[in-house]
């Protein structure tokens, strides 16, 4: 898959309304974790993060459907379409993980952020091949 399609997918994920919600949530999360930090807070925030991610994806459902439909029509393979959806989602997970990294820079969050950002970059590079 051409890297431009993946880059376009990241750009598309960032410009959807769901991403604004994720950004606002990430900002609140930083404040929440800094002001009232405890293990319970961390656990609750993790659950909230999953819900937030799910909500942001749901709010962009028509856009995602449009993207998948268009990619399908132009002849992208099924696994490439699935990869595009992963990239779309990972972009948002990355924002939330940055919030954790700022508010709670423990070895766990640092390594999580490191792994996730690497997975994202690796996916883009690994699948950026030309079909032939």
């Amino acid at each position, binding site marked *: *898959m*051409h890297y*431009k*399609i993946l880059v*376009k997918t990241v750009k*598309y994920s960032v*410009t959807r309304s769901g991403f604004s919600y994720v950004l606002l949530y990430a900002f609140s999360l930083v404040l929440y974790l800094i002001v009232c930090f405890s293990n319970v807070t961390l656990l609750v925030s993790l659950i909230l993060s999953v819900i937030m991610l799910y909500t942001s994806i749901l709010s962009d459902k028509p*856009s995602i459907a*449009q*993207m998948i*439909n*268009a*990619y*399908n*029509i*132009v*002849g*992208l*393979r*099924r696994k490439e379409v699935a990869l595009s959806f992963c990239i779309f989602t990972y972009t948002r997970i990355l924002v939330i993980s940055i919030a954790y990294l700022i508010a709670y820079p423990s070895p766990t969050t640092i390594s999580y952020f490191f792994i996730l950002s690497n997975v994202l970059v690796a996916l883009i590079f690994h699948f950026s091949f*030309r*079909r*032939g």
Partner: protein
Amino acid sequence: MKDVVVIVKNMWKYYSYMGQRIAILKGINATLYRGDIACIYGPSGAGKTTFLKILAGLERPDVGEVIVEGYNLTLLDDDALSMLRTTIVSYIPQDYGLIDDFTVYENVELPLLVSGVLEEERRVLILETLRYMGIADKMHTKVRYLSGGEKQRVAIARALVVTPSLLLADEPTANLDWENAKRVLELFTRINKDFKTTVVIVSHDARVLEFANRRFALYDGILKEV
């Protein structure tokens, strides 16, 4: 001797509804030749879109064979069917299948990116296609700001940019007034003449039939040439 592009042999397609198996296409047989403009006419729910999607490799028949440009679609895996959509077959869905927040250029560029065409060549091909379609001035406009007729042209441009041998259009006139619809249909006729592309148009509007040289009626899952 005419060059065969599509052969459909005894094709059946079923759907499951409320636990029941319902046949949507019943033993369809058809042969299309290079340069044909075929119009499949029938009421809503007759199975027109399903038939077109099977020709595009987006769905598979349950029984029978579909051969497009010598490729038996029933024997191909998903990857091969995707490859077919980047080279031989182009499908234009009723809702155009465009990404509203991409520009016209970006939408038309997509199939070329998938086929791995180099940037310089991509630019030339896109510009040529957009000029041919008469929408070169809208190149940097986002699709969401275009009218229905312009969106249809962008969808045709995206389908045409890979110069397919089979162009499938699902209800291309459904969202347009008759004046715009006529322009789109004339465009299909021009594409057919200029590129020798076989065009299959599916419609519930009988007026579309006058633009076709092969006319089919699809009623209750049964296809007949008229």
